[in-house]
């Protein structure tokens, strides 16, 4: 057993874990953070995406022990004070989900995409979400949602046309 100390959605957790325990299983089975689902076993689908110290990772490809000392944000910790994150709101507004199974990972990946590139073009959104698979939506409304969130989150540059500012970030 190895000792891990992580902060998950603002709560400090200290646990003894098997060294082989995947972060996603630690979150789901040990901490009850079942909002983060598992969609594959080969890191292809991205359903389990969380933020590790602010950067998106597929939590099925990180060992719990590798997360030691880190801060983890899951879909359950994204809303603040009962206020949905703009990306969550945009997914609802644009009907960017159907069954919703890929949604936690898709939202977390989108949050990281917008952190990296606040004004992405359509092509940059599609490329940025390439590692997250959705079987229901055909991605069109997901792209729309990320655009809406980008518009809301970067009001200062709202007058700049989206396609012109693609590489500006």
């Amino acid at each position, binding site marked *: 057993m190895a000792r891990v100390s992580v902060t998950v959605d603002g709560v400090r957790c200290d646990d003894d874990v*098997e060294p082989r325990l995947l972060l996603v299983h630690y979150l789901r089975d040990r901490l009850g953070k079942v909002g983060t689902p598992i969609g594959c076993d080969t890191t292809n689908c991205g359903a389990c995406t969380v933020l590790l110290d602010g950067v998106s990772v597929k939590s099925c490809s990180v060992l719990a022990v590798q997360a030691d000392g880190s801060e983890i944000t899951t879909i359950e910790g994204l809303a603040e004070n009962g206020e949905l994150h703009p990306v969550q709101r945009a997914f609802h507004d644009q009907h960017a989900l159907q069954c919703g199974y890929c949604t936690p990972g898709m939202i977390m990946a989108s949050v990281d995409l917008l952190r990296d590139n606040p004004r992405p073009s359509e092509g940059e959104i*599609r490329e940025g979400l390439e590692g997250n698979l959705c079987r229901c939506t055909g991605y069109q409304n*997901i792209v729309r949602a990320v655009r809406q969130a980008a518009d809301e989150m970067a009001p200062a540059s709202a007058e700049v046309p989206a396609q012109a500012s693609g590489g500006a970030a």
Partner: protein
Amino acid sequence: MTALEPETTHEIGQARRRKEDARLITGRTNWTDNIQLPGLMHVAFLRSPQAHARITSVDVSAAKERPGVIAAFSGADFAAEQGSLPCAWPVTEDIVIPDHPPMAVDEVCYVGEAVACVVARDRYSAADALDAIEVDYEPLPPVLNMEEAVAEGAALVHADKGTNTSFHFVMENGDMDAAFAGADVVIDRTFVQQRLIPAAMEPRAVVCAPVGDEYTLWSATQIPHVLRVMLAMVTGIPEHKLRVIAPDVGGGFGSKLQVTAEEVLALLIAKRLGRPVKWTESRSEGFMTTHHGRDQIQHLRLAADRDGRLRGFHVRLLADMGAYLMLVTPGVPLLGAFMFNAIYKMDAYTFDCTGVLTTKMPTDAYRGAGRPEATFGVERMMDELAAELAMDPMELRRRNWIAHDEFPYDTVSGLTYDSGDYEAATDKAMALFGYDALRKEQERRRSEGDPVQLGLGISTFTEMCGLAPSRVLGSLAYGAGGWENAQIRMLPTGKVEVVTGSSAHGQGHETAWSQIVADRLGIPFDDISVIHGDTQSSPKGMDTYGSRSLTVGGIAVFNACDKVVEKAKRVAAHLMEAPEADLEFSGGAFRVRGTPEASTTIQEVALATFAAHDLPDGMEPSLDSDATFDPENFSFPHGTHLCATEVDTRTGEVKIRSYVCVDDIGKVVNPLIVEGQVHGGLAQGIAQALYEEAVYDTDGNLTTTTMADYLLPSAMDLPEFTTDRTETPATTNPLGVKGVGEAGTIASTPAVVNAVIDAVRHLGVDDIHMPCTPERVWRAVHDAEGRARPPEDLPPGAAGGLGSVNTDEGASS
């Protein structure tokens, strides 16, 4: 209440944001794998690495000694009680249905079949202990190629059956000999519908908790009600002792329309151990053992006059059943029997289908189920005929389709299409697409010898959905009816609970049903909640598949509302001291005709009925009502899909430049949900055309067991779609609605492949096997430059990515 109140709440037709989203975007979901129960044990299955073998011994004793393990079982342990997994659709009287034990006992017939299991304290311990199980196999020959499987002397999948032909189904209408004898043109083609993996994002999972002699089973299923009945029939556990719950379910596309071995075994293990158990598949396990879709060889012959008029269409199919017949396996290709004639008029039609047993994972329903295969066949043939006649492919279709003033129309396959307007949908689509300008550009690129060629693909489709009139299902030997149930509960405070037998897994029923009820009862959208997916709280249902929920389940909701209003009217008349006949109901209130200022709301009636102090004589104190709706006919959505592809003749790469579809799905309850369904349907149909294929190697191993090998499209692989609608109401239900869940998938595959072929037809290419991978396209172009290839010399280049082994001579010949 004032007289200015609107007639109704006008919810139907509004792009309401979904009620379901609140939990899905915040992670407050209830997927089956999320469920934790006191004392919950985890099950892991050991699966056959052999495609076909006799099991000579299974020894689980060492596994039982592993840490954390509480039990381990082999098939022999369940043999006396596990029964046989059901096939509910014996399509012919002499159909061969192999015995299908949930856990293999003596023989395995496909790679992935469960042969043993471990029950342990956690999922890691369970998986670890599988290594300690010893199984000895005596290999038998795999059966992989359908043409060979039905030939004399073929190795048999099930020796006791003496044949690999499960059934032979023939449906004929018209004089086929006459149709072909006098025909100016005969087109003869063989197409392959490759095997697909449905790949819902949520893997299958099941939890079973025993309490005394009663069992609660949670499953990632589309069919909690059907599953309950079937589990009772298979295991002998009385139906009233079983409760099945479909909690949040992450997509299905047909793959969760099944009674699975793992569901039966979880129930039997929980029964035996007296404690709750959970099983969740890994993705690679699921790709091997969750039923597959499609997999047909289509031999098609089409006879026509020189002016393009269709005379006869002869369809001969080999349909791969896989190793066993599961819930509706043999019925899937038969749904296509009614659809190969599509929107066209013709004199003669024959549908001849042989269901073939092979040593592969069984096939069963996958989005569209039989109808995409049929639509592909006929729409590809229409393009081939147009090329033969040197006629514009849309003009050919116009000359043959049923005109809008010919409805209702009795088709050559025996259905009655109630309504449709193919002209309107096509005109709209052609304008949005810019068909003529694209044809000009195509001509220019051809004449300039542009290495990147442009192709235009058409699919003018219809489909039959809203499964289904029970009498029709009965005539096709299906084991159940096609009705749906709904109940409306009027709560004392005027809020409403809608209980539905439909079982949503992404469709948005909570939202759409609320919109219907809001309009019918005049109750605010937010005052309505929808209960589904639990046989205890929604006890009666036929569940969700075949684009049936709105056209059958939604109409049941509609009808139940009307019954509530009937009852409430009686109470209102009593309270208002007015004759019932003088009351009218709109906007949620009863008024006496001619005195609009005096009204009683349905909420007031609900409270008065709850109190029951002063009700009409003989009236029971309840407004609650239920309705069971059995449709009189299928619904027939249709539409025109147009695809423009750019094909790089140097690399074989295909890029979709534009995709336009105009669908006619009748009246629309929620355009936002409809558009989403169309997008997702298109994605899956395009995926079949360009990306996806389940590949078995020559030993019968599935080589596409991961998402790195089985190529689900990502956001980078799909274009922005242009979607629009025409609205020709269905005449067979009071809402005028048709289904939409499968339309995009049914229509899009031939549109894309027709576009790919059209881009390179002038180079001598008239077919490319799906998926049209760069290698296949490149080979087709280069092979066509010199010689015509015989049909059995098929191009390699299967999908399957890393490590895939091409076995086209098996699966695709």
